[in-house]
């Protein structure tokens, strides 16, 4: 029995937010505050990592569903990418031949069939958003307490001239007309 038949990879489920879009799957790792984008091949492999399906079975599935040649290598490559981004429950020890199979070599192999290189598994990171995207404003007291002056890391500071806020105690705040 080869390692591909024995290995039953399991996708991580905890502390992840997953949003499946028509042409990609987005994953947010709450533990590491990292966002990833999985292309359809990587997403398909990841979705089959249920701890019961072997690498060989996933490869057969890829061959059937996507018509990919060299599907074993593609699955290993996907597992490697997913593992690097901590999206698998346990680390995957790649077999020697798979470990040495680079993306470039894979592209050369698949490139013989036009368009198939697009199906190579890809897990890319999404760049962090600008703080200014969020919210309309934050109370100045929050800015002073939580964020770094002088500009609250880009977040707006509330300035409502009609209503001031007098803190009554630690838990509430009584709006009143500014004098």
């Amino acid at each position, binding site marked *: 029995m080869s390692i591909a038949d024995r290995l039953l990879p399991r996708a991580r489920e905890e502390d992840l937010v997953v949003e499946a879009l028509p042409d990609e799957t987005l994953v947010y790792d709450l533990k590491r505050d990292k966002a990833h984008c999985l292309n359809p091949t990587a997403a398909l492999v990841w979705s089959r990592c249920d701890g019961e399906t072997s690498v060989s079975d996933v490869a057969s599935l890829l061959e059937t569903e996507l018509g990919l040649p060299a599907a074993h290598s593609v699955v290993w490559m996907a597992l490697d990418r997913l593992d690097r981004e901590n999206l698998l429950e346990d680390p995957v020890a790649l077999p020697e031949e798979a470990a040495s199979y680079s993306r470039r070599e894979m592209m050369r192999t698949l490139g013989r069939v036009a368009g198939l290189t697009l199906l190579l598994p890809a897990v890319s990171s999404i760049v962090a958003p600008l703080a200014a995207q969020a919210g309309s404003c934050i109370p100045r007291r929050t800015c002073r307490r939580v964020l770094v002056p002088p500009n609250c890391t880009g977040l707006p500071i*509330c300035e409502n001239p009609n209503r*001031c806020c007098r803190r009554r105690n630690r838990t509430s705040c009584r709006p009143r007309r500014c004098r």
Partner: protein
Amino acid sequence: MLQAEKQNLLSAPALPLTFPSAQSRGRAIATFLAGSWRTRPPPYRRASIDETGLASQLVKTGAGGLGWWRVRDSGIDFPGASELREAYRLQTLHSGIHERRIQEGVVLLRAAGVEPLLAKGWLAAGLYAQRGLRPYGDIDLWVRPDQGAAAFEALGYPPGQQYPIDLHANAPVRDRTWDELMARSHPEPVGDTHVRALGAEDHLYLLSVHMLAHGAWRPLWLCDVAAALESRPREFDWDYCLRGGKRRPNWLMTAIRLASDVLGASPPGLPTSISNGHLPRWLVPAVLESWAAGTPYMHTTPVGLTTPRPAALWNALRIRWPNPIQVTIAWNREFDRSPRLPVQLAECVLRSGRFLFGRQTATPLG
């Protein structure tokens, strides 16, 4: 003098004087975002607008996802398309994260015997073709005024530390009591649970006034109004929506006409008081200029921390010259043809006084 000339003089632009280049920049944003909130946005055709840097500006003001939605199927090699797509992806993920957080927060509030009311961010995102099109930094929840202390305690103080929840212990809409708002609210599905959400009429008003109160500087907020208008339910009660304080009809008309005139929102069945309404001439240029500027004074370095050089101080003051839309709401005025200059000056004096005497703490307008 002819009546028309008199009216033109009266509707003189609000200071700062209108800048054609800024307006054309704002117009480019408006052209680009027109209809972008719809499930099928109108096909984007390369217009005679300057697209340079447009993507960055959209992302900066929270309209990056909408930008991507508009160009994704156009087949046009739009500069900065990848930036827009990244924004869309992140916003989609944040929406999923917020869904979790709302559920967790609501469970805690309900355990403390508090039933919250949902509005703005999450609810506004639901008006769009996809939630990921509309970003929001925090989750706006309102609770009964007498349950504020219990709610703050349940979520932990200060709010926003453990949960990104902006908790308000008041009625979110002026002229309405908490009980009225709750009676017209509806259950909104959030993940596995349901949360009471502001009724469509009250939400439209809240979105409109929120946009105006912040000087309409984010294009996204006008898209909110447009999306709320076009997705309003069949039983939408205009009488109830327009009934209330003296300014309510004027402010609503202003926001709706802006959505229609600037972004091309085409909501059928508007009451005649709105469809026949006219915007003062200074208003659209003011909106377009604030879009072009992209950053309101609230985002800039506080004056107190500005280098005490005359040029820097002058620049700080120039940036802080009151937005005519913002002061209209703040001073409880109508959007009419009368010049904004007196109100802007008064606002300037008030702000300076507050700055000098150290009264700077304020709460956000809901």
